[in-house]
């Protein structure tokens, strides 16, 4: 694939216009905001930085990379999926990963991406979960996106999802949102410069967001699923 063609593929999948279902989730931001713990742009940036460093880089990325490297071996991908799900303890974050992954899988099924229909059948009939990072890794590979680009796409999607949620919650405006996305860039690049962890070493630690997501389960006034 020529470089400009690869860039166009990456642009298509990074675009928030792509109907991947990412707008229903705040990944813990809404409840932290509700608990008065995230109230301004600086706090949103800190929250996203923590998500990138302590959840995405050390946990989501290894699983995405493992699914990418599984090269369409759906049995192996289902195993990776199972371990990921055992590592996400707050129910809403687990369900968010499954719903967002399911939406991405479904659109790729309809686009006839290789393996998407078969994996969707495994999710429907054989107890596979279809968690977001795992689905991203495997469908993006099937679309011809290389491993490093797939990881960058996933970090970008998380950043856009979180700042998008922050805008809709009325914490920040569009300019601050872009400034936060720019501030994440060196953080994400520094992570991508390091090799991805093996999933046997994957870890995550974002207790404030975990606790907020747990508390969100009993909150009735909400915009987001987590």
């Amino acid at each position: 694939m020529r470089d400009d063609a690869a860039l166009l593929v990456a642009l298509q999948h990074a675009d928030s216009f792509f109907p991947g279902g990412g707008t229903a989730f705040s990944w813990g931001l809404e409840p932290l905001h509700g608990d008065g713990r995230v109230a301004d742009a600086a706090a949103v940036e800190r929250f996203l930085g923590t998500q990138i460093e302590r959840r995405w880089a050390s946990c989501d990325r290894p699983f995405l990379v493992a699914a990418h490297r599984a090269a369409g071996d759906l049995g192996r991908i289902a195993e990776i999926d199972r371990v990921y799900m055992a590592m996400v303890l707050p129910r809403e974050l687990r369900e968010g990963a499954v719903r967002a992954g399911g939406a991405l899988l479904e659109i790729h099924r309809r686009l006839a991406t290789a393996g998407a229909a078969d994996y969707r059948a495994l999710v429907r009939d054989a107890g596979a979960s279809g968690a977001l990072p795992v689905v991203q890794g495997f469908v993006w590979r099937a679309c011809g996106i290389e491993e490093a680009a797939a990881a960058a796409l996933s970090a970008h999607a998380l950043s856009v999802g979180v700042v998008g949620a922050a805008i809709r919650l009325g914490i920040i405006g569009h300019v601050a949102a872009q400034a936060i996305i720019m501030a994440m860039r060196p953080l994400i690049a520094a992570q991508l410069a390091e090799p991805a962890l093996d999933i046997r070493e994957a870890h995550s630690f974002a207790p404030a967001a975990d606790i907020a997501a747990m508390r969100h389960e009993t909150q009735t006034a909400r915009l987001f699923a987590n």
Partner: protein
Amino acid sequence: MATRAPDGRTYLSRQYASYPYHICRPQIVEGDPAGMMTLYLQSCAGGMFEHDRLAESVRVDARAAMHLTTQASTIVHSMTEGTASQTVELSVGSGGCLEYLPDPFILFPAARFENRIRLLLEPDATAIVGEAFLSHDPRGGKALYRGYASEVRVERDGELLLLDRMAIEDPSEPVPGAGERYRAHGSLFILGMPGAEAEILGAVRTALAGVAGGYVGASALPRAAGFSVRILAEDAWALRQATLAAWSCARLAATGRSPHPRRK
């Protein structure tokens, strides 16, 4: 190893301890489920030091019941370059019950520590497992530990139920990402409790809501394994209150009686 005697009481059927461990005499605590044994595991070392490699292995046989704890927090002392580690293997037989609630690790400045807990559950086994740490500078300053890694892995019949793995390196806050306010973090896993899960979870949440100095949440685990509790606490007292509240509530829901806090 804890085994159920014909009269229903749990007794220590086999034990082995070498330095620095000391296994205290089993006790019966009033208010506990019939036959439950309480055991304190003590260390005579004055804490964990650089290059310490400790290992514990605990088996609770079918239908036996044990509450295993420590007498006090474990200090993890300052280190130069090395690390200290502890590996805990727990297994609970069918219908058995284990409560593994050690006091928190107190991480001194420049301490590095790895804690690894693996729990194997047989069918109908129940367990409550706790893991917690606290950052503390004995000189009253703000110096922090250098590393803390923890893994809690729970399997039932060869199936992975949960894997909680964290790794903190060179933290800039006592609990990374939680702000300067919180000095302690704890996790509690309540596993295999029979009956009305939603009600137990609701009760645990109500009990936790009353804990001052903490930011606490509880949620159902994957595969209907039970639930997890996460605790951020301003100090050791708040951490202990939240842990006691969740434990007490889970016990009440499972057995109909609240437990008495263990003497420390």
